[in-house]
């Protein structure tokens, strides 16, 4: 009963912000032409490529994140910063990342190798964007592995065997949770493959967008949305089932382990190099931003474009407002799912599976009076970011050892007290990791594509697009400067969030 009561606000929100508007759009497409669109082999080709891109990215990120997460078990200089930085690229508009990539490894790139249009670049970009999605939650779960592995070793298992039979199964929930998010983000990604590879690498999402935004071809769009769901829902159900089956209790959480001075310096150099390699396209952006320092001044009092100060203020204000909605939503959602609400479990991920353009047009049909209102803006932001917090929270909740909770109960603690004194501290690391991801999604304004923009509400990423819409060196340099500002703002917020330690 409780689990449904708790789920009610979440379901209400989903109905308002997603299901009803989406249904309004999809309803327009039923009828003639639907079958024809389904029969089009071109769309099936797009679907196949989206699937390859999604699964490939997901696998790549998980494989990379696992060893990295182990390195982050230790305390070394710059650890918190690097960890925070792994989520930062998430906030950047795709065109800015594309500029970074092409100025490094484009046809006239600084490195002299041209990767434009190759799979290397596409998957590299995917790792750059999504690595943090897997890495952050993983790092919070790793400390719990110590005890079980030590136990297995005591019982005579070899290190390898202990790791394969105990460590990996224990980590699986977090790996799957991160992996499924990466899959969703790359499977439904819009800009990245297109910008870095050209039209032949367009995903299904691109076709949906063109069909809806440019042609109002509803039957085709409905077919495309259904196709996309038909693939992503089974993949997700599979992920979720695995996640549930393998979620075993993991022991205590701990602080990062200390290392000797030399070893920690070595680790820093090593990890710094790995990060430098992965994120080098962003570095080339930084270099370009400092080529002409005058842009750093003009950007604040631009008369033609939105000044950076206003855009920064808007970004922070909207992010703050959105978090007010995201935190209760994700909290209720994770708690209800933890208590066994299966329907909500996969329904809650629906926002990441559905084409934003369909939802955005649905808003216009369903709530014409709310167009351009703050309410619909914040709703859109929250819709596309709360799943991140919720998914990161869940493994922590599920891994909460029953024995500790039951122990507290036997000792006479009330339900509320158990939650406050036992549950809360145990989910804190997951909460922080999830909050970082959700915050990054809010600052990156994933929801912005859903709503009509008002010029006075221009945010940092919109200020970038605004400048990249006019030809000239001035606007271009200012756009790069704002992109760097966006990285700095997100980076410092996320670092602060990572520093905060519960006592």
């Amino acid at each position: 009963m409780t689990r449904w009561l708790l789920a009610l606000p979440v379901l209400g929100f989903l109905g308002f912000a997603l299901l009803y508007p989406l249904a309004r759009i999809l309803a327009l497409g039923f009828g003639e032409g639907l079958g024809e669109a389904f029969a089009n082999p071109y769309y099936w080709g797009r679907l196949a490529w989206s699937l390859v891109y999604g699964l490939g990215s997901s696998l790549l990120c998980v494989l990379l994140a696992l060893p990295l997460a182990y390195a982050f078990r230790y305390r070394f200089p710059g650890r918190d910063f690097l960890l925070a930085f792994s989520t930062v690229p998430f906030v950047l508009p795709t065109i800015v990342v594309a500029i970074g990539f092409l100025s490094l490894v484009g046809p006239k790139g600084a490195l002299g190798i041209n990767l434009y249009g190759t799979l290397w670049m596409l998957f590299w970009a995917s790792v750059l964007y999504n690595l943090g999605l897997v890495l952050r939650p993983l790092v919070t779960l790793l400390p719990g592995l110590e005890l079980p592995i030590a136990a297995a070793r005591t019982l005579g298992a070899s290190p390898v065997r202990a790791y394969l039979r105990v460590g990996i199964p224990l980590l699986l929930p977090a790996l799957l949770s991160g992996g499924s998010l990466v899959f969703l983000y790359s499977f439904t990604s819009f800009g990245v493959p297109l910008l870095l590879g050209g039209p032949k690498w367009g995903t299904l999402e691109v076709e949906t967008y063109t069909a809806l935004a440019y042609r109002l071809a509803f039957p085709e769009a409905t077919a495309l949305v259904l196709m996309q769901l038909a693939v992503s829902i089974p993949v997700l159900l599979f992920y979720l089932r695995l996640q549930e089956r393998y979620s075993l209790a993991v022991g205590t959480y701990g602080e990062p382990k200390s290392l000797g001075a030399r070893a920690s310096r070595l680790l820093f150099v090593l990890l710094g190099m790995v990060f430098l390699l992965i994120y080098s396209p962003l570095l080339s952006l930084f270099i370009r931003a400092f080529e002409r320092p005058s842009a750093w001044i003009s950007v604040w009092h631009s008369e033609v474009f939105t000044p950076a100060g206003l855009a920064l203020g808007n970004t922070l204000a909207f992010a703050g407002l959105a978090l007010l909605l995201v935190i209760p939503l994700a909290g209720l959602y994770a708690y209800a799912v933890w208590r066994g609400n299966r329907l909500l479990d996969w329904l809650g991920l629906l926002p990441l599976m559905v084409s934003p353009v369909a939802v955005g047009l649905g808003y216009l049909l369903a709530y014409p009076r709310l167009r351009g209102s703050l309410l619909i803006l914040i709703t859109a932001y929250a819709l596309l970011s709360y799943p991140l917090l919720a998914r990161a929270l869940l493994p922590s909740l599920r891994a909460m050892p029953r024995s500790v909770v039951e122990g507290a109960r036997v000792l006479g603690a009330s339900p509320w007290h158990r939650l406050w004194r036992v549950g809360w501290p145990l989910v804190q690391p997951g909460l922080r990791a999830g909050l970082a991801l959700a915050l990054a999604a809010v600052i990156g304004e994933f929801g912005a594509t859903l709503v009509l923009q008002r010029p006075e509400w221009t945010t940092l990423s919109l200020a970038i697009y605004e400048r990249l819409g006019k030809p000239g060196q001035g606007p271009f340099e200012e756009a790069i400067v704002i992109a760097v500002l966006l990285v700095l703002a997100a980076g410092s917020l996320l670092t602060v969030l990572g520093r905060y330690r519960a006592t």
Partner: protein
Amino acid sequence: MLLRPRVKTWRFGVAWLLVFSALFWAIGFQIATIGLAQPTTLTVLTHDSWALDKSLIAQFEAQTGIKLRFLKGGDAGAMLNKAILSKGAPIADVIYGFDNTLLSRALGAGILERYRSPALANLRSETILDLQGYATPVDYGFVALNYDKDYFRNRPLPKSLADLAKPEFAKLLVVENPATSSPGLAFLLATVAAFGEDRYLGFWEDLRKNGALVVNGWSEAYYTHFTRAGGDRPLVVSYTTSPAAELFYSEAKPRPSEPPTGNLLFPKSAFFQVEFAGILKGTKNLEAAQKFIDWLVSKPVQENIPTQMWVYPALRGAALPEIFKWAERPSEPARLFPQQIARDRDRWIKEWTQTVLQGQSPKR
């Protein structure tokens, strides 16, 4: 007993959260309805490139008592579609920014209210493409090829559209996808006007074989592939005003005497584009909407438009800024009738996609 205060803290936290979210929604609805309560707020749906001097807008608001609220709805095509989609319950009072490639679609969808501005008589006659009086021309421009002067300093420039398919200009051109970009569509239409229905696809096939690069939108073409921004393509489909804008926004000190880019104005290679404004059917602020349209084609706004949106004013006699001497107008632009565009646009885009993106040889 010691536990009590803790329990209260937790309950307090939950109550606080509930109150906070309730408050949030209440405020949200409040803000949403304030917008409705003021009858004198005029909502204007525009494309993303909309820009105008803020003092002009403030002046309009002060003089008429009408508050302006602008909504940006994507690029011109996406914006118009939003207006068409929400026909029953319009999302704005006025729409600005749909061009002659979209005119017939706007008229055919029946979303516009008829209004003949008294200022219409003062507008350039070639911009008045809707004789029924639903769409008021506000500005016009030309989609044209730009070249990087540095690159072509010691190299010959192409002299006609057909030259672009020659080996010496291989892999030099970047164009936008006409399915997703309005300059891309305009350039495709220019090639239809220049080569005719039966030969334009052959030309595009040659371009493809000659290594023309296709990208999704203007920003991408100009800022990631054009040589000026560090790409490897010295020829780009842009606007005739882009060289002037390059000079205007130049950061070099002292400001260079001429733009770093130039226009290639072969006969029928620059597509003539007119941007219109119209009143959306179902508006409750008809009178205010009419005032707004009149104001859009008034002299102060028309003279501000060139350096804000980099288009030419539709008003005859509106002074052009000095810098527009670098925005030459082609003597022989490409033109197509809006009706013809409306009838064949989707087919052209489809054939183009098959030829250029999917690499099939044209059937003819």
